[in-house]
């Protein structure tokens, strides 16, 4: 932070100082929005929209599901699937994306497949995955893997292609070999793209997970909601929806935080 104080009038320092004040106001507004939302919900439940539980009912149900451990078991089952699929997908996407960006041959060979599968919603793969891989954990993890792989691979590839030519030339004239240029210039320069790809990938992995669990599972948030639907148990469905939303948001924020820390060097308007 010393350089910021040294450059007291720089735009970066000003934004940094403006930050906390503006976000406090934003947080206040967010809270107001939540309160209004809950009020509207309560109102709709009281004037009697068919079968709609109010916030209190849902909270009571949540307490029940937490107390008997169902919510925790379901959450862990869902998280495990999503994290395994997401990690495998990202781990494969980064090297493949680099290959495609760096070698024209690799791009020529892989791009048709990546572009083709990208246009197929991962959910549409589920029937095929179940037929070929059975109804265990594998097809669910596979579909999540595919969803996060496809979104990460494209942005990694884009990041490598978009690396500023001048930076590569600057390294070359200092005597850098292709290997050094790749490791010391291309990799750091494309980090912001990779992280954005990971966020998009995590989002689509999470979305795919719940759908995958709707089909065949013994536990998990999607499975719980599917069960609740059979028994017309709207409160449980609401608990499931809120848990999915909160967890998705938390994971997104965690990645955003990592992104901010890792790409703090970027010039932001």
């Amino acid at each position, binding site marked *: 932070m*010393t*350089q910021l104080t040294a450059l007291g009038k720089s735009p970066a320092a000003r934004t940094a100082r403006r930050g906390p004040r503006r976000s406090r106001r934003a947080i206040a507004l967010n809270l107001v929005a939540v309160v209004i939302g809950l009020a509207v919900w309560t109102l709709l439940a009281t004037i009697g929209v068919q079968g709609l539980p109010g916030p209190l009912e849902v909270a009571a149900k949540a307490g029940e599901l937490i107390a008997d451990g169902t919510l925790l078991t379901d959450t862990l089952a869902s998280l495990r699937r999503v994290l395994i699929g997401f990690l495998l997908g990202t781990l494969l996407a980064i090297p493949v994306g680099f290959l495609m960006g760096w070698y024209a041959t690799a791009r020529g060979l892989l791009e048709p497949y990546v572009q083709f599968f990208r246009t197929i919603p991962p959910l549409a793969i589920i029937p095929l995955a179940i037929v070929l891989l059975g109804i265990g954990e594998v097809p669910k993890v596979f579909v999540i893997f595919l969803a996060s792989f496809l979104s990460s691979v494209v942005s990694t590839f884009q990041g490598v292609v978009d690396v500023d030519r001048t930076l590569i030339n600057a*390294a070359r004239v200092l*005597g850098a070999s292709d290997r050094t240029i790749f490791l010391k210039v291309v990799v750091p320069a494309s980090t912001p793209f990779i992280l954005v790809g990971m966020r998009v990938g995590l989002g689509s992995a999470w979305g795919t997970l719940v759908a995958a669990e709707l089909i065949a599972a013994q536990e998990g948030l999607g499975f719980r909601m599917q069960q609740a639907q059979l028994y017309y148990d709207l409160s449980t469905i609401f608990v499931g929806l809120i848990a999915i939303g909160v967890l998705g948001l938390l994971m997104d924020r965690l990645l955003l935080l990592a992104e901010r820390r890792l790409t703090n*060097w970027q010039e932001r308007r």
Partner: protein
Amino acid sequence: MNAKISFRDVVKTYPMKEGTFTALDHVSLDIADREFVTVVGPSGCGKSTLLSMAAGLVEPTSGAVLVDGAPVGGPGPDRGVIFQQYALFPWLSVRKNVEFGLRLMNLPAEERRRRAGRAIELVGLADFADALPKTLSGGMKQRCAIARAYAVDPQVLLMDEPFGALDALTRVQLQDQLLDTWSQEQRTVMFITHDVDEAVYLARRVIVMAARPGRLHKVIDVDLPYPRTEEMRLSPEFGRIRNEVWHAVYHQAPAVPAA
């Protein structure tokens, strides 16, 4: 004749939809060891292409580019290049940027730090050694890029409109600083610019190029002693040379098609 950089009958053409585009048409030019040469010319005259060839980033279509009598086979740390867009690695601090080339030379850490520190001091960025490029002004960024080139101690400095994006005051300061360092360390400098004033103030020889096709137009000697001073900019002699260069750049006769 000890030419440090030698362009021998250099031609560069690019294929177009129809026919070819001639960026450089039979250019021959010798730059002596420890000479400070500036190259001016209208846009499209191929002055940056010429510099990129000396840097080893572009290959001539025909002809040869020699450094110390040997053909240029690619970029190398013996020739430092400074780009107009600074080309700093934005994820590295000023010090790490300056150390980039030194790391590639496998110097011991202590020696690396010493040389980087000296280069940073030379360009007056000692107080900002740990700052990231995004916190620096344009002039400071370019000074960091210059320090990065100095640190590996190249014999040749190739500068591609390095001060083009800076305000007038910063530009003058950096010109004086550059001359100062050059008079101490006597590197061979090839400096591309579109600013006639800058071209005359810095160089011993001004190379004027012409466009379509890019070619050598005129070589004008600057018979002003070093060190150059601000007063010299106002002298009648400076004015006369400046005029001559100006006319050579802006009142060029159109290319005569070969009969």
